[in-house]
C-alpha cells in the first residue's frame, strides 16, 4: 500500500514511498474524545518515517440540513458534538442573525456568553483533570489499567474530586440557565430563551472561589510536572506553524465575539482583525483519501505552508493580553516562554488551557455581577432579510465557522461547517510524527512510548468522541505490518 504524509512536499514523495516497508497501527486512541487510529510507517531501518492520524467519523450534517428552515440550525448543529454543543449553537445563532439582520439585546449576549464560558470550563476541566492529569501525576509508564481518573481517585482523591467538581461547575451553569447540561435549548436566533433567576445567580457566584482554587491546583500540578520535565515538555512536538484565534478590538483574548488574528511562526501578525464573514478569502481546505478530516490552511500562504493551529495555545499566541487579572498574571509567564515569539510546543496546550480556565471563571464572575444579568430583555425578533449568513465563535478546541445559504423563504440550500478539530488536523499529524520519531524505534514498541504518541494527539484534546475514555481502560491494538499489509507483529495492551 502506498502511504505518505500530506505535509511532505510533492517532490519528496517518491523517496518516501520507496523507504516505507513497515506500518504500525495504534487503534483506537484512548483517552481522547474520538474514533481515531494512528498509523506509523517505519522505514527499512526501523525508524519512523511517516505518521497519520485517521479520523474515522462522518455523519453528513452539511448535506442533510439542506431543505430545512435556517431557524432549526441552532438546535440541530449542537448534535455535532456533545462536548462543545454551546459553541455550535452560538456560531449557528450568529449565522441566523446575519440572515435576519437582527441585533441581539445586551442581556441576551450576557446569558449566551455565560453558558459558553461554562462549556469551556467543563471541557477544559475534562481535558486536564480526567484525561491528561493521569500522565502528569501517575507517570507515562504507569499501569495503563489505572492511568485514568479512577486511578487518580485512588492515589490523589482530592485532585480527582476537585477535577470532577470543576467540570460539574461548568455543566451546572448550563443546567441552571437552561435546565439541561448537554444540548441545552435556549440559544436561539435573536438572543437567549430563558431569563436567569436570582437564586441560580447566587448559587453560581458562590461556586466561583472553589472553581478558581481548583484551577490553581491544576496549574500547580502542571508546573510541578514542568519543573521536573522541562526539557521533555519543551521539546514535545515542538514545531512552527501559524496560529489563528478571535481577538477583541484591542487584541485582547476573546472567545465569543470579535474578529480573527493570524500570526506566523515568528509571531508576526499576518492577518489582523479579519472578519469571519470573509473566511473564504483567507481559509481553504483540502480533503485527503485516508481521513474524514480535511486539511485547512491559510490561503495567502498556500498548501502546506499555510497550516495553522487553533485552540487554547493558538488563542494565547495571538492575544496581546487577557481580560481578567489572575489570567493576565499567568499569561505573562506564558508569553515569557516564547521570548517574544509564539509558544509552539504542543505540551503547552495544557498550560494554555488552564490559563483560559482561569479567565473563563473570572469572566463568569463578572457576568454574574453585571447589573443587567437578570433582565428579561433577552431576545430580539425578526424575519429573514437576506439569504446568506456566517457565524463564528471559539469552541474549546478552536475557531468554529457556520455558513448558511438559504432561498427567499429561508430554506437552506447550502451549509458549510469548518470545525475546530479539523483545523488542528495538519498539526496533529505533524505532532505524532515528531513524537514518534523521538520515542518509537523499530517494531518492538514500548508501552510508555506509544502512550506518548497518543499524548501528542491528546494535547489537542480532539473532539471526536466520548470522554468515558476517561474512566476505564481499553485494549489497544498495535499492528506492525509490512508494505503488503502482512502482519509482522501484534502488540496489545489493557483489557
Amino acid at each position, binding site marked *: 500500500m502506498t502511504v505518505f504524509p500530506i505535509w511532505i512536499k510533492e517532490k519528496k514523495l517518491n523517496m518516501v514511498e520507496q523507504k516505507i516497508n513497515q506500518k504500525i497501527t495504534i487503534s483506537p486512541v484512548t483517552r481522547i474524545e474520538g474514533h481515531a487510529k494512528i498509523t506509523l510507517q517505519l522505514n527499512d531501518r526501523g525508524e519512523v518515517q511517516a505518521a497519520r492520524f485517521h479520523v*474515522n467519523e462522518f455523519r453528513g450534517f452539511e448535506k442533510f440540513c439542506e431543505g430545512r428552515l435556517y431557524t432549526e440550525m441552532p438546535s440541530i448543529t449542537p448534535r455535532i458534538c456533545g*462536548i462543545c454543543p454551546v459553541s455550535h449553537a452560538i456560531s449557528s445563532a450568529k449565522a441566523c442573525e446575519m440572515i435576519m439582520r437582527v441585533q441581539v439585546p445586551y442581556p441576551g449576549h450576557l446569558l449566551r456568553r455565560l453558558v459558553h464560558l461554562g462549556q469551556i470550563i467543563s471541557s477544559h476541566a475534562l481535558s486536564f483533570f480526567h484525561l491528561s492529569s493521569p500522565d502528569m501525576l501517575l507517570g507515562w509508564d504507569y499501569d495503563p489499567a489505572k492511568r485514568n481518573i479512577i486511578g487518580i481517585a485512588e492515589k490523589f482523591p482530592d485532585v480527582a474530586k476537585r477535577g470532577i467538581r470543576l467540570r460539574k461547575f461548568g455543566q451546572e451553569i448550563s443546567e441552571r440557565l437552561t435546565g439541561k447540561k448537554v444540548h441545552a435549548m435556549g440559544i436561539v436566533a435573536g438572543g437567549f430563551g430563558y431569563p436567569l433567576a436570582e437564586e441560580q445567580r447566587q448559587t453560581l457566584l458562590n461556586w466561583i472561589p472553589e472553581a478558581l482554587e481548583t484551577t490553581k491546583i491544576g496549574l500547580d500540578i502542571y508546573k510541578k510536572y514542568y519543573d521536573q520535565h522541562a526539557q521533555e515538555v519543551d521539546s514535545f512536538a515542538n514545531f512552527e506553524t501559524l496560529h489563528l484565534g478571535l481577538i477583541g478590538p484591542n487584541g485582547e483574548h476573546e472567545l465569543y465575539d470579535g474578529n480573527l488574528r493570524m500570526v506566523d511562526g515568528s509571531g508576526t501578525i499576518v492577518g489582523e482583525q479579519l472578519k469571519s464573514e470573509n473566511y473564504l478569502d483567507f481559509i481553504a481546505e483540502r480533503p485527503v483519501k485516508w481521513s474524514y478530516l480535511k486539511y485547512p490552511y491559510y490561503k495567502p500562504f498556500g498548501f502546506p505552508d499555510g497550516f495553522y493551529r487553533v485552540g487554547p495555545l493558538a488563542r494565547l499566541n495571538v492575544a496581546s493580553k487577557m481580560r481578567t487579572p489572575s489570567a493576565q498574571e499567568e499569561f505573562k509567564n506564558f508569553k515569557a516562554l516564547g521570548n517574544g515569539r509564539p509558544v509552539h510546543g504542543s505540551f503547552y496546550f495544557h498550560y494554555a488551557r488552564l490559563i483560559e480556565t482561569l479567565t473563563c471563571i473570572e469572566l463568569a464572575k463578572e457576568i454574574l455581577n453585571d447589573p443587567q444579568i437578570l433582565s428579561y430583555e433577552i431576545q430580539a425578533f425578526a424575519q429573514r432579510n437576506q439569504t446568506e449568513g456566517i457565524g463564528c465563535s471559539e469552541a474549546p478546541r478552536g475557531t468554529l465557522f457556520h455558513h448558511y445559504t438559504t432561498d427567499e423563504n429561508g430554506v437552506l440550500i447550502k451549509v458549510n461547517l469548518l470545525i475546530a478539530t479539523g483545523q488542528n488536523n495538519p498539526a496533529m499529524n505533524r505532532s505524532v510524527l515528531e513524537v514518534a520519531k523521538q520515542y518509537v524505534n523499530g517494531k518492538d514498541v514500548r508501552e510508555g512510548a506509544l502512550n506518548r504518541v497518543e499524548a501528542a494527539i491528546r494535547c489537542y484534546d480532539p473532539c471526536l468522541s466520548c470522554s*468515558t475514555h476517561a474512566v476505564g481502560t481499553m485494549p489497544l491494538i498495535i499492528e506492525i505490518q509490512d508494505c503488503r499489509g502482512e502482519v509482522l507483529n501484534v502488540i496489545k495492551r489493557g483489557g
Partner: protein
Amino acid sequence: MSKKKIATVWLAGCSGCHMSLLDMDERILDVAKLADIVKSPIVDGKNFPEVDVALVEGAVASDEHLREIKHIREHSKILISLGDCAVTGNVASLRNLVTKEAALARAYLEAESNEQGVIPDSPEIQKLIDRVMPLHEVVKVDYYIPGCPPSADLIFYVLSEILNDRVPNLDQGKKIKYG
C-alpha cells in the same frame, strides 16, 4: 461475587450521552466501586471482553459499526441502547433523507471552502452503509434509555439497579423523554 464489568461504546453519535454519563460526577466513583469500567471502541472485535453490561451510544452508520454492535451483543449479558440515536436513529439518521454519496460529495467535493476535492476512501477508515439504523434493527436490545442525551440521574438509576441485580423500572416518574 466477582465485580461486574461495564463497557461503554460510541457509534454514530455526538458523545453527548457519554458527557451525560460523566455528569454523574462524583457518583462515577460509586459506580467504579460496583463494577470495573472496561473500555471498548473496537476495530476488529477480537479484544472486546465479556461484559455484564454494555451501554451503547449512537446509531449504526458504517460497516465498522455493524461489526462492532454484533460483536458487542455476543459478548454482553445486557445491552442498553443509550440515547435517542441508539434508540431511534435520531439526528444521525437524518442522513437517510439523502444518499451517502450525496452526503460525502457535499462535504468533500462541493464545500465552498474546498480548493480541490477527493472523497475519503482507504482501508483505515470505515465505509458508510446506505441506511443509518437504530441498534434494535441489528441486534436484540435489553433496555432503552431515550433522551438527547438521557439525564445523568436516569443513567445512574438504571446502572445502579442493574449492578445490584434488580430490574430497573423505566415506566414512570423517571423523567424519561425523547429529545
